[in-house]
């Protein structure tokens, strides 16, 4: 997983609700075998015109927002399919942080497996960042600082955000979940020994 400390950029105001992972990355792009090379396909049905040229009306294509590491959205960003390719595609197009009032649960978990920071802020706060950005898109910079757990809006207001410390630590240091879990190997073995005695039916029928 990529470490995340802080990012700064002109936040992309894609202020839509229920942006689903099918829209972020069509399934047809996930029939290869890898996590790489998906960035060019992120949002492809909206990002490109039928002739393959960039769609100038799609907000992330507009000059001040191109290659920005911060995306703003309304409720339920990343809902729908569990495809982790949505996270790989967003990171492939340069996004390292999405700020929204709420996220699809599975997308939210997938973010932390890869180093894409999902920040939950009330819709009023997300709108404020969008409005401050749109007021001066050429030079409006938003910073997301994970060490301090704050979003700094273009006008300089610092908005704290909450995050489980377990997830913050893993993100700051790029920790591998499997290695952390394997530290509990003794507890796992003890649980299994007890459960196979108590709930033999759950073990025997598939043995």
């Amino acid at each position, binding site marked *: 997983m990529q470490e995340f400390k802080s990012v700064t950029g002109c936040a992309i105001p894609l202020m839509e609700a229920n942006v689903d992972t099918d829209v972020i990355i069509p399934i047809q792009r996930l029939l290869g075998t890898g996590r790489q090379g998906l960035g060019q396909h992120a949002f492809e049905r909206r990002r490109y015109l039928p002739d393959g040229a960039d769609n100038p009306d799609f907000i992330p294509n507009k000059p001040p927002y191109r290659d920005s590491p911060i995306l703003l959205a309304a409720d339920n960003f990343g809902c729908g399919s569990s495809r982790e390719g949505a996270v790989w595609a967003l990171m492939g197009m340069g996004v390292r942080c999405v700020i929204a009032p709420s996220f699809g649960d599975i997308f939210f978990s997938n973010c932390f497996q890869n180093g894409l920071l999902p920040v939950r802020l009330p819709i009023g706060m997300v709108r404020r960042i969008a409005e401050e950005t749109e007021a001066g898109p050429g030079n409006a910079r938003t910073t997301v600082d994970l060490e301090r757990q704050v979003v700094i809006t273009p006008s300089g207001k610092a908005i704290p955000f909450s995050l489980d410390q377990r997830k913050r630590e893993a993100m700051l240091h790029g920790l591998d*979940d499997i290695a952390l879990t394997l530290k509990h190997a003794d507890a796992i073995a003890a649980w299994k020994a007890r459960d196979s005695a108590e709930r033999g039916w759950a073990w025997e029928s*598939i043995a």
Partner: protein
Amino acid sequence: MPSTMFDKIWDRHVIADLGEGWSLLYLDRILVHDLSGGHAMAELAEAGRHVAEPRKVFATPDHAVSSLPGRTAASHAKGERLLDSLRERCAAEGVRIFDLNQPGHGIVHVIAPELAIVLPGLTLACGDSHTCTNGGVGAMAFGIGASELGHALATQTLPQRRPGTFRIRFEGMRPPGVTAKDMILAAIGRFGAAAGTGMAMEYAGSAVRALSMEERLTLCNLSIEMGAKVGMVAPDETTFEYLLGREFAPKGAAWDAALRDWRALASDPGARFTRDEVIEMGDIAPQITWGTSPEQVAAVTGHVPNLSDAPNEGKRAAWEAALDYMGLQPGQKLEGTRVDWVFIGSCTNSRLSDLRAAADVLKGRHKAPHVTAWVVPGSETVKAEAEAEGLHLRFQEAGFEWREPGCALCVAANGESVPDGARCLSTSNRNFVGRQGTGARTHLASPAMAAAAALAGAIVDVRSF
């Protein structure tokens, strides 16, 4: 203190408390499929790791396999590469695979209950968001991403944050023409596509108790379309009768011991839920979606909303974009809207009872000439049982294509898709932009509604058809 069913299953599976509401949970079962299974196992091997408990892992190729009658793996070349990788990794790790065209094969969430891989009280994870389907038997089943799948396979555990609980009680008699699909679509329409985010759903009430096992699977299937990773129905005699004798169900004394555990699983009287709602069955009519989110749904007798009725600017913009994509006008009557394609299938509605319900609408009639109508049974078992009843002949005589099991047009990952601009009445679970193919316009409804639309060539109310 009274506990919910969810609390009982969660608490039993906690290996370690990780703080802040996080627990390391044991997984009783893991399901893998062709889209992410081979890849996840290959990544593990590259990292020098292996599947911790291969006997608890079950694989089947469903997403990227052709549904063409007489298909082989080679019928979809990209899918064949994924399937080859899945086969190779399953063989190397000792994981059971229900392979293409073999007994037991099918959509992963159709075969797991069918083979009794999933049982009441178990935890189950799979790299697919519709894993919540399996909660219909009273299990805690949830979808995960590719990295979490790797973790699950390597350790047979997952760190999870305890969600809230959300109970919906459906009370009263089921009106004619109303199916489990209509019940859950009505709930999503009422509460919204994000109402279950961070929640585990439990469906209860007299109308849920009266549902068959297959209907309960349909009900739980769409939990994720309300935002919830988990959806559950308490196990009861309907569940036990369904599971008894199936391939991986406990046998003999183990069955008796299991039954004792299962009978204690239901939420205790007085158990507290984070959110608790009631829906009166009398308020539900057959549903059909009109937009590009499952929450954009109405009674089939209703209309597309007027933009001025939107509760806020965000919804207004979303409705406008949805109607533009769907080629519908604000205020338009839904009935009579011309339909080009009909798809009966998916982990939502491809089981035997779904196919029977669709076939019962046909009554010897033929589909409208301009409609392409597909029936894709959920599994080899469903297909064989349906053919034994002659359902395939009834569909074929009505002009429907009778195809091979898989996800097919629900997710369009198998080289099959609904054409650009075509309108499809689908029994699947997602009406997202481009879901069934670039530019494809999806309306979600029940199998009976789908069959009626194929005959009429348009959206019709199945109750008057």
